[in-house]
């Protein structure tokens, strides 16, 4: 317990020692920085009245700030208000001199400012006993008023100029209807000098306006007077010295008492009156006086001799009080050029225009920012919702949806993909897509990957893929490149649809159609057997005749070998002919796979007519072909298209079989159909079809023939539809019917 305070005391002591050392060091350092030459300048301001006089305060502020600015070493200002104006006794002045002598003995004063004539006069009067070698700069309200003083050496200064007629000119310009000018002044000799000046300067205006002079009136009386001025008057306030109106001390104070009740605007002479109720005028510019005097003082403090600096007269400045202009309804714009308007009450907008603009801008920007944020948030939310929806769609899709890198590495795998291919996402993500391709289609996958990397896509490619169990699946693939926001291809998305069932149905349908077509063909060929037998019999007849003729020739003694050779040639030829007929028949009879190839429909028609030639003959039917030359090719199955033409030709024959022999004509035409396809028509001159049957004849099992199965035309229509064409019937204008079918042309390909 006892040891603790001791410890503390020790700490305090140590701290104190340290602080002392620090202070000493700082002091030494600062003392070293300030040399003897660079001691602060000492300036004394002397006024003859008290220092609360507005003009003095204004001047003291301007002068000291101007001088201080020019002095890096600093400035000390002393102020002496002599008050000799209010106490003008010799005794006081004597005592005052003595006091100042005593006060400033041993004190260095580098420069004295004398603010007004009385102060300057006091200094000049006591130059020998007081501040005898100190330079003096005076500041006079009116330079003319110091012209009677002999300044002597070491004294210079600045003075204003009281300009009365310019103020009156301005007043009359601003208020042209002015009839009366009331001049207000004091009654001391100084005041009287101004009144004299006024009378002199205003004399040229005597005819235009009426002048009245209120001099030396007590304040109340003066106020009453000014409050009851008639219209079209102005007040011209000159100067009221302190002694003139004992109730007041300074002119501004006096004006501030008069102005509120004045019924006319008050024009004046000094800047110092501004703000107390005076409207303005051509005013002694205290700001400029102080600044110039300050500059002058700096030159002197810098070593220049005052007598080398001539006194300067500072011109007055046109200045106005904005509040008074408003009060008297004078537009600021009508003021003379270069006028200074003080006490302007700026509107909030004028004062804070930029701040308001900035504030509003900030608010607007913030609002925009908030709106933008809300918007982007909404958008992001929308995008997220859309993304969620998309993700849900992808996840619930029956189709396999997967994505892969440009190299073909699988990076996403949906439930549909799992269902179709059997791999789970875990198993397959990271694998190459070619794992899904059957061995012979690996190159197809490579081709697709290569194509995607070039920006290509794959649209509904029907191909096969392998499931995990190795089962082949028919799929339709749609693959598109995935681009990043800069448009670079990052990978690809694949949508695979399982079309196994559809494919199977397609195959079954095709098979069914082929079988039906075959059945119909076989039926038709049965009807044609006589004709076909003839086709085959012709070459067989020729062969047999030739062969037997040859045998006979060879039995002769003198064998004509040339004849035999000729015969053998003919046999070969006829054998081939028979072979062709059989080939043609076999084509029609066999249940062949549908085989699409480029065909000339003119060939198809000619071939069919060759086949039925004998049948037509037997039925006494003339088959007339009108084939358009240079037909574009079509793509189709030759056998099936021949079957259609054959069917139409045979139907045509049947339709006209009952007619008179001479009319049994069948016209088979080919031609372009509106430029987009080829039309084949078979026109008969039979009895035509009932309008109801024009369409019914294409129904399965519909037949107008006693032995017809009713399959022929329905099969024909299936065939033509499968070829992308149309088959229809129409009655002719005269008689009979025409069956038409069209097949799309492949104009770029000629058969």
């Amino acid at each position: 317990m006892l040891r603790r305070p001791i410890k503390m005391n020790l700490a305090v002591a140590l701290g104190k020692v340290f602080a002392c050392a620090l202070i000493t060091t700082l002091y030494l350092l600062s003392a070293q920085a300030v040399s003897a030459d660079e001691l602060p300048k000492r300036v004394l301001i002397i006024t003859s009245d008290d220092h609360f006089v507005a003009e003095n305060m204004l001047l003291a502020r301007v002068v000291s700030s101007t001088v201080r600015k020019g002095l890096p070493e600093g400035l000390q200002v002393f102020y002496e208000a002599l008050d000799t104006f209010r106490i003008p006794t010799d005794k006081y002045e004597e005592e005052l001199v003595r006091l100042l002598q005593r006060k400033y003995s041993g004190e260095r004063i580098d420069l004295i400012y004398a603010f007004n004539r009385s102060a300057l006069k006091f200094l000049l009067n006591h130059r020998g006993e007081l501040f005898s070698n100190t330079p003096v700069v005076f500041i006079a309200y009116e330079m003319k008023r110091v012209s009677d003083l002999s300044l002597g050496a070491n004294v210079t200064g600045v003075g204003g100029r009281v300009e009365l007629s310019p103020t009156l000119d301005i007043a009359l310009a601003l208020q042209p209807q002015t009839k009366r000018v009331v001049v207000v002044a004091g009654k001391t000799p100084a005041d009287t000098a101004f009144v004299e000046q006024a009378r002199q300067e205003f004399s040229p205006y005597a005819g235009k306006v009426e002048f009245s002079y209120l001099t030396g009136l007590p304040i109340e009386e003066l106020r009453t007077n000014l409050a009851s001025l008639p219209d079209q008057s102005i007040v011209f306030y000159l100067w009221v010295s302190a002694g003139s109106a004992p109730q007041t001390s300074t002119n501004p104070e006096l004006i501030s008492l008069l102005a509120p009740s004045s019924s006319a605007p008050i024009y004046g002479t000094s800047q110092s009156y501004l703000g107390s109720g005076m409207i303005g005028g051509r005013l002694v510019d205290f700001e400029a006086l102080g600044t110039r005097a300050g500059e002058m003082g700096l030159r002197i403090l810098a070593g220049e001799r005052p007598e080398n600096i001539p006194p300067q007269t500072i011109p007055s400045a046109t200045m106005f009080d904005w509040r008074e202009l408003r009060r008297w309804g004078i537009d600021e714009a009508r003021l003379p050029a270069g006028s200074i308007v003080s006490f302007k009450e700026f509107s909030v907008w004028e004062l804070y225009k930029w701040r308001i603009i900035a504030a509003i801008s900030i608010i607007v920007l913030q609002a925009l920012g908030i709106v933008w944020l809300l918007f982007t948030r909404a958008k992001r939310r929308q995008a997220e919702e859309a993304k969620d929806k998309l993700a849900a769609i992808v996840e619930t899709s029956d189709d396999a949806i997967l994505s892969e890198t440009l190299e073909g590495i699988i990076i996403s795998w949906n439930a549909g993909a799992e269902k179709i291919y059997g791999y789970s996402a875990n198993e397959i993500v990271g694998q190459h897509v070619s794992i899904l391709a059957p061995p012979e289609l690996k190159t197809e996958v490579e081709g697709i990957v290569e194509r995607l990397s070039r920006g290509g896509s794959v649209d509904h490619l029907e191909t096969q893929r392998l499931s995990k169990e190795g089962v082949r699946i028919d799929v339709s693939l749609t693959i598109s490149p995935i681009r990043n926001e800069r448009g670079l291809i990052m990978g690809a998305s694949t949508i695979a649809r399982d079309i196994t069932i559809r494919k199977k149905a397609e195959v079954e349908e095709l098979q069914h159609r082929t079988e039906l077509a075959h059945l119909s063909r076989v039926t038709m060929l049965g009807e044609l057997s006589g004709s076909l037998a003839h086709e085959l019999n012709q070459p067989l007849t020729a062969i047999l005749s030739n062969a037997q003729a040859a045998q006979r020739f060879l039995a002769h003694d003198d064998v004509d070998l040339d004849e035999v050779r000729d015969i053998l040639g003919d046999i070969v030829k006829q054998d081939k002919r028979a072979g062709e007929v059989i080939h043609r028949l076999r084509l029609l009879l066999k249940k062949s796979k549908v085989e699409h190839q480029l065909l000339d429909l003119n060939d198809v028609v000619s071939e069919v007519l060759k086949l039925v030639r004998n049948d037509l003959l037997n039925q006494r039917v003339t088959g007339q072909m009108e084939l358009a030359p240079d037909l574009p090719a079509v793509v189709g199955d030759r056998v099936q298209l021949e079957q259609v033409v054959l069917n139409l030709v045979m139907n045509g024959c049947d339709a006209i079989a009952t007619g008179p022999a001479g009319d049994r004509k069948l016209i088979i035409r080919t031609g372009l159909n509106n430029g987009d396809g080829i039309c084949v028509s078979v026109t008969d001159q039979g009895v035509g079809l009932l309008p109801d049957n024009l369409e019914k004849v294409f129904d399965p099992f519909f037949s107008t023939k006693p032995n017809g199965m009713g399959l022929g035309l329905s099969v024909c229509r299936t065939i033509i539809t499968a070829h992308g064409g149309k088959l229809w019937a129409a009655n002719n204008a005269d008689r009979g019917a025409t069956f038409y079918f069209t097949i799309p042309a492949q104009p770029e390909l000629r058969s």
Partner: protein
Amino acid sequence: MNNISSTVFVVDDDPDVLKGLARLLRSAGLEVATFSSPSEFLEQHDLRAAGCLVLDLAMPGLNGLELQEALTAKGSAIPIIFLTGRGDIPMSVQAMKGGALDFLTKPVNDEDLLKTVAGALEKDRFQRQNSAELDEIHERLETLTPREREVLTHVVSGQLNKQIANDLGTVEKTIKVHRARVMEKMKVNSVAELVRLTERLGKIG
């Protein structure tokens, strides 16, 4: 079969078949003329030419049956052998009714064809011979006077001279003269011969 003056006319629109058939017929030593259409044959055929016709049944334009009709109309009795690709019964019947000699199915065997052709030529020859005799009888008949023709008619009907004279209102003696002249003009020696001649002519008139 070696009849030099007879020709086998072959009509078929298939030139190869035509050529083959012609060759076969020629190999058998027959004279052959070929025509590619019935109308061509009809235009060029001389009715007097001896021979037979081998005709394809199914041809464009005029068909075999029509050619047969046209020939009949022209008074041609040329034997016709029809060739057909199939045994079309109605057509065959029609052809046979029209006087077709035979009806052969393509492809036709040489023996069948040659045998049939030989038969046809034989028939033609017979027909031609027959018709030549009739012409002769006709020519003789033409030389008779109307009175002699009347007498002929009565004679072949088996009447006696007396009956004929009675019927014709003349004397028996006159009838005898007429009768002798008829026998002379008709170049017959007996009434029996005369009767056979008139029977061949059928109805006289």
